């Protein structure tokens, strides 16, 4: 059955379509070439509407053990924000850490069709995937956390060849059903277990005597040589520390030209200038991103209000416990492969540091020139819940609104920021790049994030509204794989989304030392670590496997 969406203004940057009025035809869950004038079984009038591919969030903590611990901690959030069940939808609760079903409904209501959990500890993979089976409608996927796993640190310590590292990375991605690899405070989580309280990029992880720089080199190169589409996703060392811009710039250098994605860079773009020894280094980072085409970033914008920070970075979270609001926090060391830390935060516009963090994030958005290399995130829930995206989009698209908001924050922050002088306003085309086309491209999702023939029919239809926050809050229609799933922000169908993975090839010789490592040292045996195809299928998990294209292996 062909459904024709007629008369909408299309923003499809991947196919060079910028606001042109065109029909869009859907058949069998896919976008198809126009079969000719008038040919359709069903026609939907889209005149006056803005049409984009479904939104894709490349970095959002939506599932896994640490999200569940955050839910446990956020009692007020779950008491005060209730989502009753309805005919089609499950009940739930929470804003900063919504329950799984509610997370899917809210993303769909906002016009998003995919969100990627960026911090899956390897040993938590099975539990994370089972949880994500209860995250409805939207597609999902995970980045497995490496770089604090003792097996890899040991490989590096012993000077293992790059091929062995590649084999291990590939094995781990397949074992944990991952789409990407993230490194969080490379080496720092392991170092914290050895009672180190800080780790510089050229410092040394205790016992292994490996520097974070080496971890970054090895992993960026591994992913490139394995042909994994998504580059190494890096949460740099020294998160939140004034002056950490030097670490962030050194991290770019450590990639040695290989593709690298720096995540939530707002938290990593701090200088030490001024009376308070805390300043924006957004311009320096933007300059580095603008001049290094191998670098992509997402911002991790903060928005004022209550949230909770959920991170694998135990070292940083232990340090940040002093700022917990309300005053409670969790730190957990996990299974010789990672950790997690949860610290509730209330970002206040009357607090100088928080106010400056807000300006730093916006400066980054506005000073980085290429929208194909900057992604819209709040590092949900760390900077703000993902439901803050519509307001964030308005801040980027509407200079008057931005400057009015700037006028309300801590006066000292207003004085030191350059934000007020930046004239740039994002266009709808640029928003479509940043939230659709570019995320699909950087994740290797060839049939998502665009509206060309053959693409999955994930389509968002907005009423064009000068108030961009209102426009992006509750689109008129959302189609997921061709079926309408939300209308005016309300869910009308609840299919299961897919789980996107890659399966890079590797030499099975790596399994022998791995088996020995697990069986000798770990508390789950090797044969039970990897997720099996059948258990994923039994849990109703529908995998989309994306190709890897190895680039010049050594």
């Amino acid at each position, binding site marked *: 059955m062909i459904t024709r969406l007629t008369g909408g203004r299309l923003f499809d940057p991947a196919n060079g379509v910028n606001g042109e009025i065109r029909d869009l035809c859907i058949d069998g869950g896919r976008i198809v070439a126009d079969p000719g004038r008038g040919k359709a079984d069903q026609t939907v009038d889209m005149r006056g509407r803005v049409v984009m591919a479904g939104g894709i969030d490349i970095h959002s903590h939506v599932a896994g053990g640490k999200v569940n611990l955050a839910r446990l901690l956020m009692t007020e959030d779950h008491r005060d924000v209730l989502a009753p069940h309805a005919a089609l939808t499950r*009940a739930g609760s929470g804003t900063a850490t919504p329950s799984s079903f509610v997370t899917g409904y809210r993303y769909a209501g906002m016009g998003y069709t995919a969100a990627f959990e960026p911090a899956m500890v390897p040993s938590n993979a099975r539990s994370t995937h089972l949880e994500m089976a209860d995250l409805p409608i939207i597609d999902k996927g995970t980045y497995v956390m490496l770089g604090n796993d003792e097996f890899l640190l040991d490989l590096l310590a012993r000077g293992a060849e790059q091929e062995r590292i590649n084999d291990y990375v590939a094995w781990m991605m397949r074992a944990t059903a991952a789409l990407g690899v993230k490194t969080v405070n490379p080496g720092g989580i392991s170092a914290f277990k050895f009672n180190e309280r800080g780790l510089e990029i050229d410092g040394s992880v205790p016992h292994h005597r490996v520097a974070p720089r080496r971890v970054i080199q090895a992993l960026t190169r591994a992913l490139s040589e394995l042909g994994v589409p998504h580059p190494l996703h890096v949460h740099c060392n020294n998160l939140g520390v004034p002056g950490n811009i030097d670490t962030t710039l050194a991290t770019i250098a450590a990639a040695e030209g290989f593709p690298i994605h720096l995540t939530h860079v707002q938290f990593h773009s701090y200088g030490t200038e001024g009376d308070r020894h805390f300043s924006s280094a957004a311009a320096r980072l933007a300059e580095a991103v603008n001049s290094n085409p191998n670098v992509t970033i997402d911002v991790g914008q903060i928005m004022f209000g209550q949230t909770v920070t959920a991170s694998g970075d135990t070292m940083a979270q232990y340090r940040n416990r002093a700022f917990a609001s309300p005053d*409670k926090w969790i730190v*957990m060391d996990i299974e010789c492969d990672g950790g997690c830390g949860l610290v509730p935060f209330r970002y206040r516009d009357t607090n100088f540091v928080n106010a400056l963090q807000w300006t730093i994030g916006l400066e980054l958005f506005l000073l980085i020139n290429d929208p194909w290399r900057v992604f819209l995130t709040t590092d949900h829930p760390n900077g703000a819940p993902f439901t803050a995206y519509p307001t964030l989009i308005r801040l980027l698209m509407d200079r008057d609104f931005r400057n009015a908001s700037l006028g309300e924050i801590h006066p000292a922050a207003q004085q030191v920021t350059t934000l007020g002088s930046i004239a740039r306003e994002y266009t709808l085309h640029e928003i479509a790049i940043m939230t659709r086309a570019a995320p699909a491209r950087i994740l290797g999702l060839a049939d998502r994030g665009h509206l060309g023939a053959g693409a999955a029919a994930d389509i968002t239809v907005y009423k064009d509204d000068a108030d961009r926050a209102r426009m992006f809050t509750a689109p008129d229609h959302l189609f997921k794989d061709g079926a309408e799933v939300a209308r005016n922000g309300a869910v009308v169908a609840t299919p299961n989304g897919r789980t996107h993975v890659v399966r890079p090839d590797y030499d099975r010789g790596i399994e022998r030392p791995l088996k020995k490592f697990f069986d000798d040292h770990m508390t789950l045996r090797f044969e039970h670590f990897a997720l099996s195809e059948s258990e994923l299928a039994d849990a109703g998990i529908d995998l989309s496997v994306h190709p890897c294209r190895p680039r010049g292996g050594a």
Partner: protein
Amino acid sequence: MNEASARGIACPFCGLACDDLLVGPIGVETRGCAKAAAGFAAQILSREHRVGGERATLDQAIEVAAGILRGARLPLISGLSVDLAGAQALVALADRCGAVIDRWQSVPQVDTQGVVQRAGALTATFGEIANRADVVLIVGSDPARDYPRLCERLVANKTPLYRKEPPSIVHIGPPGAAPSGVPLVAQVPVETPRLLDALRALSALLDGRRAAGGTAPDLPLAPIGDLAGRLHDARYGAIIWDAANFPAGEGGLCTAILLHVLRSLNRKTRCVGLPLGGTGNSQGVAQVMLWQAGWPSRLCFAGGAPEHDPWRFHAERLLTSGEVDALLWVSTFAAAPPPVATMPTIAVVAPNAVLRAAPAVEIRVGIPGLDHGGTILRADTVIAVPLSAARASDLPSVASVASALLPRLGAAA
């Protein structure tokens, strides 16, 4: 037994979920664990489903069960000795029929959750403790009663990564219930009723305050001081406890003081807690409730949205208060019969459960990890362990029964 034909399987009968058992032609080799041996020896006493005591097909039993749930004003779903898929399906049922859902005998777990909700936690998984801990403090009665291979796996493991010598093991608790089978470097004798005061003293000493010895002359303050010193000097200490072994009514307080102890120690060194939060996948049930509803226990969906209240939605209290008018009882690993209740009861139980009275509906299901595959969470929460069928069985799973019930309940209210 032919080793080559043996395959490793995991044991679902305690929160350690040891996955190094071997199943071969003569059954499961349980590595000396009596609890596992008893669990895997579960007999099939009945595989028959019953309605009102009479044999029925599974479909007939499910139809009658659905009628009971549809007709109830406030049903209670309890027992909850189930695998992850079972828990997922049962929370869905609770949501659909506006039920209260609460695990049976969950007081220690709810006490522990309450401390996390109010103050937080500082913990580690088994693998960290097994590979790093140089000092291990065991608090309260020997947890080996419920976790038989705890010391073998976390303390006496032969090839740790980062400790050169076996850890110093210290016990504070009743000397008559000290950990057996492992050498203790120190035992601080404190009978269970005095545990809270002893932990307070430990906390005070670590904070550099004087312990209130004057008001508690019977506390062994010198050994407690020695214990504080050992934890303080440890590179990576670990404190292991099971809140079920704390004095009745003081589980939350003891846990909160231990959290304070951990926070004090981590200012200078590392020390982690391991609350052995229950067995029979109780952590998995809590995690499913957290992700599906936002709360870990004691949930009520009667208002359409999940409400959590440790007192109002406590299963044992509700059964005696008369506030609930139907009981869906589900027990696989524990094979526990439902409490005898005056209200209509649907018992979904393992084939070895011995029922005291004929419930309105009796449905026999398999035990995950014995009769069919599944997944459970270990007591340290993070690691989900895959289970496989250790014997041939055609008993249905809890998830399949709950999923068959769901569409017969009508639309959500």
